[in-house]
């Protein structure tokens, strides 16, 4: 076989998911509607017990749609699949500390349905 020249071949394989390179919409609670190959990002969310928020989570609408269909969401830290707090069976909660004081700490977490 002739190997006289190493040809730098650019394989213009506009392969995986061409829509990746396109615009990225941002929604607080992406539901997967719209073009399944378009990307929708969820803005950073507060991670309980941490000062810094989690990362922005970007996924294809098809992936968000599957998550919602399964009643799931991505955790605030962007790592895990968790039950969707806005799913049909689980309502989002408002939580706050009740009781205790700045000096003695203590108190109790109280959550109420929104």
């Amino acid at each position: 076989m002739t190997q006289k020249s190493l040809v730098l071949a650019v394989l213009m394989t506009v392969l995986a998911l061409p829509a990746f390179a396109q615009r990225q919409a941002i929604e607080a609670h992406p539901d997967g509607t719209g073009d399944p190959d378009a990307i929708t990002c969820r803005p950073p969310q507060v991670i309980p017990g941490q000062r810094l928020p989690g990362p922005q989570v970007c996924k294809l609408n098809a992936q968000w749609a599957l998550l919602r269909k399964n009643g799931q969401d991505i955790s605030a830290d962007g790592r895990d699949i968790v039950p969707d707090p806005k799913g049909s069976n689980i309502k989002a909660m408002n939580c706050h500390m009740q009781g205790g004081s700045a000096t003695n700490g203590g108190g109790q977490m109280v959550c109420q349905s929104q």
Partner: protein
Amino acid sequence: MKSWTLFTLLALTVPAAAQQARPAAPTENVTVTGIKDVQKAVNDFVGALTVPTKMTGKLARWKAKVCPIVAGLRPSAVKLVTQRVKEVAALVGAPVDDSDKCRPNIEIVFTTTPQALLDTIFIKYPYLLGDHDNSAQGLKLASFTRPIQSWYTTATDDLRGNIQVDGVRSGGVTMDMPFIPGIGGGIQTSATGTVSMNMPDARVTNVTGGRLGDGVSSDFHHIAVVAEPAKLLDYEIGGLSDYIALLALSQTPLPDHCLELPTILNLLAPGCTAPPKTLTSVDLAYLRALYKMSPTAAIRGQRDELMYQMDKSLGAPQ
């Protein structure tokens, strides 16, 4: 999280009936006698079982040392399946990593909820489903429809040995070319008179200029095998290990009918009476031929090589 740990974490409990560990049966020695035209049967077999990769259009095989990991079975069964995959790999000439702490590249998961596992893979690690162009293809790949299925992530190995995983976004390629006035219409040029072309999903591959072969080959990067124990209660773990070994060493589409040549793939194919319960001489001939063929040859040449080697092994007239 590393992708390979995902499987281990998601592997769920399985019915005890599917976990009965039995020693792997020795390889079945099937003489291909009842078939009138062995050569034709081999051609059909190779035609049905060989799937070229999308990126190179060639057959993929392991270049990296195989390191299987099994989850969802009792420890004794885990050991049996792992060992069997390694044994078969060594038998057919595939590279094997014998280290106990090797990094797994073949993940075999027995789970009672295979579709949930695949949904998770589609959402978090879609490249493990194999090369696909859009989400519709990805969702189709992520459908669990058989008792045992496998998914192949391939990589392209170019002339200089650069390996790029197929289907994973690359950084793209930017080309600067001199701008020739009078053509190009509305293309914007820089002050230096060059035009910049950005191809976000393009990749660079080094090839030969020869017609006989481009110097590019396809390797396996990762293989996932998922099994649903509830659908496998009637099968022995030894036979299932052999079935899985074949899937883990070659990109094999599962047949939807009984194949003429005796093969372990008939074990779970619909409509097969008395299918082989271990790897057959046909399976071994196929795998040996796969690991013997020229990885850089074109698909037609690779198939011819496979058929020639198999004919030779099975005693068909040349």
